[in-house]
């Protein structure tokens, strides 16, 4: 069975939905390669969440211009040797296409080198990993005579460290934004249904699109699943999609505990959730503070959660699942921790604690980078700067825009580093001001 997400992958840039500014930039970049003027930025970095059209755009670009393609995916080995052998080599020589044409760059026929998930190299994990992969990517971008596109979810992973900064200066970043559900529903899902002869209410397509959270591939996959062996999709089918979804179950259980004033119903709901109890606890833990507005209610709720956690720990240690019942009891008790009745504020958040862990690692990385820069001024090691100065520096940085702007110039801070220091406030102002300072300095010099 062909996946619709593949079958209906746009063939041409003009078929790409959304991100039109980005597409225009990419087209101009392609024109430049075609005309024989190698653009200053020989590589583009496509940044964006899964399913927003990064890979599709790269493939469509090659197709529009009649270029060959070399693609390195996460499933390929991407260590230094392999990237040099395939991507770098491919980037220096002319190419044969799969159709048996010789593609001459003099005639504007290029070979597009696509490195997918370039932020996802498994470096430093023994010989089978992608050791040296990033270094080889950087070298390829430096020497290439052919267009290169790097595709990432998380540009920070690609641009971190000194090597990353070098790379950042060599490339142009193209940000892909998530499509809104209307675009997904009316431009993409509707087209697919028409071609597959599926009768479906507009409203249902909207709901599929909404559920995807901007991930077109996910939306198409859901649609395909619902349409399996049918010619019409009804409201009822949509429910199937929902109940098959485990997150929805946890979601409703969490919702129930927050809204309900009855321990008994909460306990019953918890019993019926077929999921890891610690994950349920994390869901409640993640969302309770946004919903229990009275601090005393909240305090009691957290007391119960911590008791539940205590028993989870005991289960783990003793491998005695008899305690599971107590975990559920305490979690259910969260619903009677409140003296007030609350409505629900907005969407519950998923306790994506993996994401949180990545975030933590990232803030440590930023802290290290900034400390390193700062250490050149404090004339201390990075560690002691980190220990003695960083907190004070960050505090002043946050409160004094002038100080922030000057230090942005002096330390050559990146936008992300400023965001990190200020907690994402006044970033624009600081950047603007630092630009003024740069200008003035330039005039005096």
């Amino acid at each position, binding site marked *: 069975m062909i996946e619709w997400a593949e079958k209906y992958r746009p063939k041409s840039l003009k078929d790409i939905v959304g991100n039109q500014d980005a597409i225009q930039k990419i087209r101009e970049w392609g024109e430049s390669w075609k005309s024989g003027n190698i653009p200053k930025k020989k590589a583009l970095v496509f940044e964006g969440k899964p399913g927003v059209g990064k890979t599709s755009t790269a493939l469509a670009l090659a197709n529009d211009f009649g270029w*060959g393609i*070399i693609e390195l995916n996460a499933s390929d080995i991407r260590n230094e040797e392999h990237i040099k*052998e*395939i*991507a770098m*080599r*491919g980037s*220096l*020589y*002319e*190419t*044969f*296409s*799969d*159709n*048996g*044409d*010789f593609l*001459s*760059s*003099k005639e504007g026929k290029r*070979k597009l080198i696509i490195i997918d998930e370039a932020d996802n190299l498994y470096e430093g994990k023994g010989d089978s990993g992608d050791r040296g992969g990033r270094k080889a990517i950087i070298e390829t971008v430096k020497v290439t*005579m*052919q267009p290169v596109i790097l595709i990432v979810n998380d540009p920070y992973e690609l641009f971190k460290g000194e090597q990353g900064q070098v790379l950042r200066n060599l490339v142009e970043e193209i940000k892909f934004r998530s499509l809104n559900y209307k675009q997904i529903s009316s431009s993409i899902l509707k087209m697919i249904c028409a071609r597959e002869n599926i009768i479906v209410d507009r409203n249902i397509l909207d709901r599929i699109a909404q559920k995807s959270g901007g991930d077109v591939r996910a939306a198409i996959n859901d649609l395909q699943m619902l349409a399996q062996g049918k010619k019409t999709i009804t409201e009822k089918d949509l429910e199937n999609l929902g109940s098959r979804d485990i997150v929805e179950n946890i979601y409703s259980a969490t919702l129930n505990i927050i809204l309900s004033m009855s321990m008994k119903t909460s306990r019953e709901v918890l019993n019926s959730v077929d999921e890891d109890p610690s994950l349920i606890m994390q869901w409640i833990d993640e969302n309770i503070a946004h919903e229990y507005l009275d601090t005393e209610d909240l305090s009691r709720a957290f007391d119960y959660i911590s008791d539940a956690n205590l028993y989870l720990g005991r289960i783990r240690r003793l491998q005695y699942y008899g305690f599971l019942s107590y975990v559920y009891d305490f979690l259910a008790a969260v619903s009677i921790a409140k003296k007030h009745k609350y409505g629900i504020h907005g969407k519950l958040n998923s306790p994506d604690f993996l994401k949180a862990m990545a975030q933590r690692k990232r803030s440590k990385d930023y802290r290290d980078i900034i400390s390193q820069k700062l250490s050149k001024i404090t004339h201390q090691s990075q560690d002691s700067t980190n220990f003695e100065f960083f907190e004070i520096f960050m505090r002043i940085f946050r409160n004094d825009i002038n100080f922030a702007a000057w230090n942005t110039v002096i330390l050559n801070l990146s936008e992300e580093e400023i965001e990190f220091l200020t907690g994402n406030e006044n970033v624009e102002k600081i950047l603007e001001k630092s630009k003024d300072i740069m200008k003035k300095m330039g005039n005096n010099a």
Partner: protein
Amino acid sequence: MDIKMNVKDLKEVTDLLLTLVTEAKFEFSKKGLSVKCVDLAHVAMIVLELNKEAFLEYDVTEDTELGIDLEKIKDFLKNTSSTDVIEMKKEDSKLLLTVGYLSRTMQTIDPSSITVPKVPSLGLPAKAVVPTEQFAGGIKVAENISDNITLHITPTEFRLYSTGDEDSTRLIIPKDLLKDLKCDSEVKSLYPVDYLLRFIKAINSEYVTVNLGTDYPVKIEFDICNGKGTGVFLLAPRIEE
């Protein structure tokens, strides 16, 4: 499909293909065997054709495509002598290799997962038929000089040279020492030396026919399996700044 051939010939075929790829699609028809492959960087291609007369026994009643892991063949052949005869027989999704009392089966690869390139028709203006030994010498001395080597044909001679940061090498063969030379006006292009080196080490042909254009791929034709088959090697030129 059930065939027999000299171990030496199969070894030559696999060694040649291994210069570019680790897996290849062997296409057996009633007429004979054909293999085409392109390397991952899309810079070089090899096309090999062996008529059924090149085999000791050739029993192919319908077109058969076999996806073959070349390293496995190579490993098996290590334990045989070049004067042996090998039998290759397809059994469902497996290939049975037998040499004397020694045999092994190997799982074949889904042929649809291996891309077979079409071979471009290039219309190259110049042609020189060069003794392989001299050609190989010219490439081998260039190995540590530069990453690239220039092939150059003029109406009077065949040249091959490389220029590094400090050193340079060249090979010049005048027309009367070539088996054949056709060239109206001179042509030259720059090619990756390591591809040529790996290729030249893998062939046994006495002569190679070098077809050349300016900033165009080179097409090298050669004999395989003692003249029982033919091979074509295509290599794309370096993009000049």
